[in-house]
């Protein structure tokens, strides 16, 4: 039996799920959906930063455009170690395409100008 708190809405139903993925405690169908997803393919949006050569903006904030499998989070983070942005980036630009074969892009959430004196 696994215990979960549903996060689909602010109620936060406390759920119980057995090995057959039968869900109890949900007040609506979203809870059931959430519980099954969480226990079979949990996904998360990852928000993090990447190092840049900009003096004014040493870190570029980025995010996965969509939720990625939860178990890949630290792999994505390792991938970003040592990566350095040395070109201008605009908010929304794809920084890494199809990250770790998930089909999901890593995009910039702010703009960076590497050399502000051009």
């Amino acid at each position, binding site marked *: 039996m696994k215990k979960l708190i549903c996060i689909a809405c602010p109620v936060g139903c406390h759920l119980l799920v057995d090995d057959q993925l039968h869900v109890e405690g949900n007040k609506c169908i979203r809870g059931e959906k959430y519980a099954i997803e969480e226990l079979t393919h949990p996904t998360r949006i990852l928000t993090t*930063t990447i*190092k840049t050569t900009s003096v004014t903006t040493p*870190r570029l904030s980025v995010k996965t455009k969509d939720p990625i499998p939860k178990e890949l989070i630290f792999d994505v983070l390792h991938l*970003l*170690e*040592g*990566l350095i942005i040395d070109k201008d980036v605009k908010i929304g630009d794809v920084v890494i395409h199809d990250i770790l074969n998930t089909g999901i892009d890593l995009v910039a959430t702010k703009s960076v100008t590497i050399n502000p004196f051009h």
Partner: protein
Amino acid sequence: MYDYVIIGAGIVGTNIARELSRYKANILVLEKENDAANHQTVANSAIIHSGHDPKENTLKAKLCVEGNILYETMEKELNIPILRTGAFVVAHDRNEEDMLDQLYQRALNNGVKEILFHDQSQAQQIEPNLADDITKVLSLPSTKVTYPWEVAFACLENAIHNGVTFKKNSRVTNIVKTEDFFNVEINDAEIIQTKSIISAAGIFSDQVAYLLEENVPYQIFPRKGEYFVLDRKAKGFINHVIYPLPTKKGKGVLIIPQVHGNILLGPTSQLQDEKDLLSNTRDGLNQIKNDLHTLAKNIPFNLIIRTFAGIRASSSYEDFYIQESKEFSNFFHVAGIDSPGLTAAPAIAKYLVNQLVDKHHLKENINFDPIRPKKTVFYKLNFEEQLALIKKDPRYGNLVCKCEKITETEIVEAIHGPLGNDTIKGIKKRARAGSGLCQGGYCEQTVLKIIARETNQPINKINYYGLNTPILVQETKVKP
């Protein structure tokens, strides 16, 4: 070969260094921490006492009253901040009023010149927030308040200006006397030679003395005092230093307006074993809150921005121990300097140095310059003065600490001054950035970057205070 090595760059050691630099001598000040003024000097009430409290005919009494007067000259020569608050000692009933009379008499005997009484209504008029049940107060107009580490810095800067050498991060680990001089070992490594040693090592005085002597004639008993700090917004709530009647434990919990507008509440008095455990405790802080109700009403506890604790170097000797060693000539103890140490410090220096002048036939240093130039505190100037300064140095336009209004130039000066420092807390001690309402929440990161720029270091090498206290511990997103 030095003539004098002074161990300890606290309020006492720095005053002695300055006083000694009036004479021709090769002087070195050693300090084990990463800055001058670290222990008692930065954790006390900041009061320049009148001299009503020390027992008659003690060095404490004599040097307290002398020191109080010497601060007048030091203010002009060293440009240190002094707030002339005056003080009230308060009584609540006939019993306490009798004790006030005794204090009055003692003050007179100690040589305190200005001293008078106020009755309940006079006292209430002057200080409307005094507790309602106070029936009589003893007024001590000569009580003042200063900024203790600024005084120590000022003395040491002036001493350096007059030829004294200062070495920080230099802990004395051994002392050996040869025929004519001492070998002073620093950090278990370097040896320095000196004809005389003056030990002004505060709470560590007995430990330092034991490096040399077989029988040190005093023992230091660490006595902790806890405090609350109220924000500058509390200014005006009480304008005098308020003392309860003293007890065996000491002067009691006080209300102490500070030079920059803050108010200190405290200290407690708690003997302990450890010399370096400066923790605040729930009990200690609760005691302060409880004791204060006998002194004042409407206390703005909601304006507390900080708590701290200090350790007093109380000693078994019970008076200041300022004497030459009985075992080794030319080793001078300046020990057991607890309250009124801050007040007495300049007088302690003269008292000791006068003896040295006689004993060692010291000649005057005709080049001695007593003046330490006034520091620019930008937001104390008027608008026209500010405009003129900004024209010369636009960094005055960059406001770094918003709470206390400290500019970039003042921080740069604190980094590069004759007693410059490159740590966050060192800059806070000198320029006050981080001392206000948000306690550096906003400006610490700016100060850190300015220090890095000015000292050509990467930002992750900048320390909070001690040598191995970097704020930024690990860079992210780099290959491990």
